[in-house]
């Protein structure tokens, strides 16, 4: 996995194991669980956007398909949750394949709009196909997941489970990046002409990564359904797809850790903002939750204008800058004391 990434991975595992000892409030555990769902979707999106260089503003569609497939098969047909999730995965693989082949021939803006259009269509179907999806009122009685008979009941258990899946996702993503396929993707990104002259089938790779990122999204959706035990079209609208892009772009488009940081920061942001609003009230500023959208947009714009590689790279650069400055200062101190001694 590479030295630095392994350290990061270890830190992630340790964080996951220890966090529930510090965060015991169910509400906040819930927020962290939602963060895990976002992280999972963002990892897939990062592989697609950052490594294969494809723009998808419609990833929420695959999350919705995963969630609804799981929801419908379990609540209406009494399927096992695991089987239903697998079915969701297979369904998005097929859809991503069919959609990807014509769509990934498109470039830039065309692809962005096509994915946006697709996500809108999925949302419309979710609302309109009442017999299948429950329409605006949604689906209820979605069962909980169980691991070999052990039902995941508490938030704490679900926290460990969902973040374990995230850790697995990170592991898979890094395996992919440091492989022949990962290199092929980076080559494709560097120069499509050169890559194809070396035998890389550009369209095939793009479609494969599209399918993989759809699988990540589908699993994220299924896990969401099994956690909430209820789903409606609300969270699967176009704004959610846009939010996912925001997370990956803000955190760092070309970097798995960046995507995760973006997902974590922006998932926790509403909590932070409502926390902040209490302080702002002291100054007479009334902060409403409605302002959240403005804040998201503002953050995205500022990052894109001033720190386009994302927060993660920004932090990395800041740290190396600090390290270099410390070395300089220490270096000066040594030369000064050396000069003293000589004299």
């Amino acid at each position, binding site marked *: 996995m590479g030295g630095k990434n392994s350290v990061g991975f270890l830190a992630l595992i340790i964080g996951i194991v220890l966090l529930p000892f510090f965060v015991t409030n169910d509400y906040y555990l819930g927020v962290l669980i939602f963060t895990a769902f976002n992280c999972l979707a963002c990892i897939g999106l990062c592989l697609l*956007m950052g490594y294969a*260089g494809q*723009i998808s*503003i419609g990833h929420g569609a695959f999350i919705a398909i995963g969630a609804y497939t799981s929801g419908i098969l379990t609540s209406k047909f009494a399927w096992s949750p695991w089987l239903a999730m697998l079915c969701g995965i297979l369904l998005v693989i097929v859809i991503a394949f069919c959609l990807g082949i*014509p*769509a990934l021939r*498109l*470039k*830039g*803006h*065309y692809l*962005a*709009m*096509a994915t*946006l*259009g*697709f996500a*809108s*269509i999925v949302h*419309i*179907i979710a*609302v*309109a196909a009442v017999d299948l999806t429950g329409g605006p009122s949604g689906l209820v009685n979605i069962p909980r997941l169980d691991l070999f008979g052990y039902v995941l009941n508490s938030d704490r258990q679900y926290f460990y489970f969902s973040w374990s899946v995230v850790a697995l996702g990170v592991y898979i993503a890094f395996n992919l990046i440091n492989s022949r396929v990962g290199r092929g993707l980076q080559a494709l990104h560097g120069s499509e002409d050169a890559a194809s002259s070396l035998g890389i089938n550009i369209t095939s790779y793009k479609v494969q990564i599209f399918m993989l990122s759809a699988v990540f999204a589908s699993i994220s959706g299924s896990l969401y359904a099994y956690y909430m035990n209820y789903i409606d079209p609300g969270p699967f609208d*176009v704004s959610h797809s*846009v939010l996912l*892009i*925001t997370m990956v*772009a803000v955190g760092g*488009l070309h970097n798995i850790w960046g995507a995760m940081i973006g997902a974590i920061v922006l998932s926790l942001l509403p909590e932070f903002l409502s926390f902040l609003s209490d302080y702002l009230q002291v100054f007479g500023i009334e902060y*409403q939750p*409605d*302002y*959240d*959208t*403005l*804040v*998201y*947009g*503002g953050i*995205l*714009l500022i990052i*894109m*204008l001033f720190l*386009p590689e994302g927060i993660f790279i920004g932090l990395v650069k800041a740290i190396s800058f600090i390290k270099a400055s410390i070395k300089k200062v220490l270096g000066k101190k040594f030369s000064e004391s050396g000069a003293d001694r000589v004299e």
Partner: protein
Amino acid sequence: MNYPDGTFVDVLQFLIMGIQRGSIYAMVAMGFNMIYNSTGIINFAQGEFVVLGGLMMVSLTMAFNLSIVFAFILTVLFVIVVGVLMERLTINPVKEPTVLRLIIITIAVSIIIKGAAMCFWGKGSHYMRHFSSSESLDFYGATILPQTLWIFAILLFLVVAYVIFFNYTMTGKCMRACAINRDAARLAGIDDRKMVMLSFALSAGIGAIAGIIITPIIQMDYARGAMLGLKGFGAAVLGGLGNSMGAVVAGVLLGVLEAFGAGYISSHYMDAIALVILLFVLFIKPSGIFGSSEAMRLKEF
């Protein structure tokens, strides 16, 4: 007078509604094309210009009781300022304009405008009084609102203005020159940066007009931007991206197909119809009805 039978009236009604909706898509498409022609990018905030136009007009006429004409002019100016600000602050300064980055920037602006609209105007839909009378007229058995006639008239006016501007005025010709070959235009002494700013201003203006004239009929709310933008983009692609006259035809066509689909297939899936057409066009002939695939391959995006 002999009125035709029910089916003919239905067809006529759908046609009218289709052309009405299609006119709006046509205007949004023209806005997309203008920015695309001068910068090569798609402005994801185009739909938000429409929303802003509608909502601002509502405030000026309903809350401040200004006359329609006066409010119209003020609203269009307001949205133009927003468009110019967007170009100056978020597009112009970007030093490494990759496709992805610019797309995300315009998305960011669209989020900000949408958020601001939600804060100022709330989440509800807003009603605005019709330009003239709100009583429907009879047209061979179908009903047509006077507002719809206003829409047709304004679309026609915009088309004529567009043709005159781009073919007979110096500024318009300069903009076209920039669109065809920016470097050559610059060498000929045209300030290409000003042309870009102008294209944003015009785009915003057209978007605002579209929002203003449709609000009396559909009641504007803060969230309509995305769908209008998508469908307008669909019209732009259908007509051949960059080809505004094609966009007008395509927009009207799209609206008509949508109306017939809603009438004969299902009204729940009405929005989906235009989107499915969009996907169809993108996958099968992205150069659109009036575009050429050779020309498309030459453009970067």
